[in-house]
């Protein structure tokens, strides 16, 4: 099953660093994650007529940056989600 890794402030919001998902598409994986971990409500997704990722949220799949919520997931995929972060 694909694994989802959370970073920075998302860890405290969810109460965990890592979890798995049975979803086959990225947007379903994110929706499922938020539903299972209500602390993430409003942190990752904007729920409306169309689900969108909140500004400055960074998502990678196997280390590749992506914003395409229709991406199909493979069982060995590793999804990483970062909240707005900055540095130098």
């Amino acid at each position, binding site marked *: 099953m694909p694994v989802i890794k959370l*970073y*920075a*402030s998302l*860890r405290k919001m969810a109460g965990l660093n890592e979890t798995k998902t049975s979803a086959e598409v990225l947007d379903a994986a994110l929706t499922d994650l938020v539903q299972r971990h209500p602390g993430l409500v409003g942190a990752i997704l904007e729920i409306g007529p169309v689900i969108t990722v909140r500004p*400055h949220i*960074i998502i*990678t799949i*196997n*280390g*590749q*940056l992506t*914003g395409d919520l229709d991406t199909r997931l493979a069982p060995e995929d590793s999804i*990483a989600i*970062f*909240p*707005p*972060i*900055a*540095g*130098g």
Partner: protein
Amino acid sequence: MAGWSEKILDIDLSTKSVKTYPLDMEMARMFVGGRGLGARLLWDLVGPQVDPLAPENVLIFTAGPLTATGYQTSNRFSVTTKSPQTGTVLDANSGGFWGMQFRKTGHDVLIVRGKSEAPVWIEIKNAEVFFHDASDLWGMRVYAVTEKLGQNNNKRNVLCIGPAGENLSRMAAIMNDRERAAARGGPGAVMGSKNLKAIVVEGSERPELADKDQYKFLMYETKKLLAASPLTSQALPEFGTVVMMNIVNNIGALPTRNHQQTQFEGAEAISGEALTDKYLVKNTSCWACPIGCTRISKTEKVEGEGPEFETTWAFGAQCGIDDLAAIIEVNSLCNDLGLDTISTGSTIACAMEMSEKGYIDSDLRFGRADLLARSVEDIAYRRDLGADMTEGSLRLATKYGHPELSMSTKGMEFPAYDPRGMQGQGLLYATSNRGGCHMRGNMLGPEVLGLPKLIDRFQIQGKSSFVILHQNSAAAVDSLVVCKFTGMGVADEYFARVLSAVTGIQYATGDLISVGERVWNMERMYNLREGFTRKDDTLPARLLTEAPTEGPSKGWVVHLEPMLKEYYRGRGWDENGIPTPRKLADLGLANL
């Protein structure tokens, strides 16, 4: 005139003479302050064939028209000189409180020239300058000197060098307010070569503002914008810059073991999350800064500022070390000895690789956290292999027959972003006027964080236009002088409006970016006069020809040549990277 004090303080250590004369206001209008003004003045003061460690080199400390006004992050200053590490123009920039206090002495610029016969420290109290014997301070470390000379953050501020600067380490930093550093390129060695131990400032003058009402309004707007941005109101205060460790590692752009790999298995252990969980005491900030990115960290042995992401990477992944406590402790040691942490960590990593391959006789190995402190002390005091390492990785690697193992360009070691995972960053490093540096226009924003918008980090064609824009913008911000983190909540337009309100001169956003472009070309002309050519706009062979064999950047090298050709065209330079007469005329630099 509002905005500038219009005064240059010029001190000759050879004769102990002090002069004050007017700042050329046309020059000030064109170059503003900070980095820009420093570069323009250096052009006049230090020509080719001047050895950076000779008395003929100068140190130019510059504030900007915003400094000490109270505008958010208006605490910074620049120090400009010819770099003993690279031989290029060098601008090193620092925060804290010293820049604010210097501006309050009523000067825009301090020029220090010559060489004192014996160790000396200088005290500037508004218009008065005092020379003091520093023979009892010579040999003291930074923390002790800072305390002895009466550091008080808001009233009396100490800038000094440690043993590294005294011993002319090419990686020596100028330290201020105990743990702040104007670090890259070896400015501390220039100060040491002049027998100048410290500069202490106390001032009481307030900068004059042209339009107080507009200025207050813009401060209020900036406060709201910084509070509304999750980057400046949550990310930076909560985790500091070390939060970059996991994202940069995740995408396969974290240089590891002297750039032999692009991911580090120990990244989580030295991440911002780990620092916050295990060692963070609190966050704090520089003068007039609402962001608060500074960490105060504590281990069993030390408590103090830092570490930053770059430091944690340089002594961490770059050295194959995942011991965060050891990294925190060596950060404190570097501050106390007065050393640039990026170059020091990366030079130790270079020595580690050379030792493992048998090119030098040493017990240094990747992962040996227990040898970090000894190595750093040896560098500061020129002991054993430290006498070679203190010259920087390029001179170290060249001496032992393997210059290709120095991860640097123009002699300055790269920071924590492997350009094989960020093509634009590679172009940035290769063209940086002071050598391997990310602060000249970090492509982290567009290529990784999506600031302002995500672009394909592996894209080659068209990448140069982003690099040029970021370089010009960074040069403008460095000339104001404010902190680049302000720009994560506030657009360049606001900086232009604040500059206009403070000076009474109307700068549109485009005018401010033009200042940045002018500064960039000014620095380029300086380096060309010093003998740098197109061939110096390059990267080590490892980054150009050795692709990572695993991870998200697998198979990628930096495709520099096509990006460089496009870059020169975009800059209005010829195919050799020389600004054309037309470009110089457009920028008001035709008389160079």
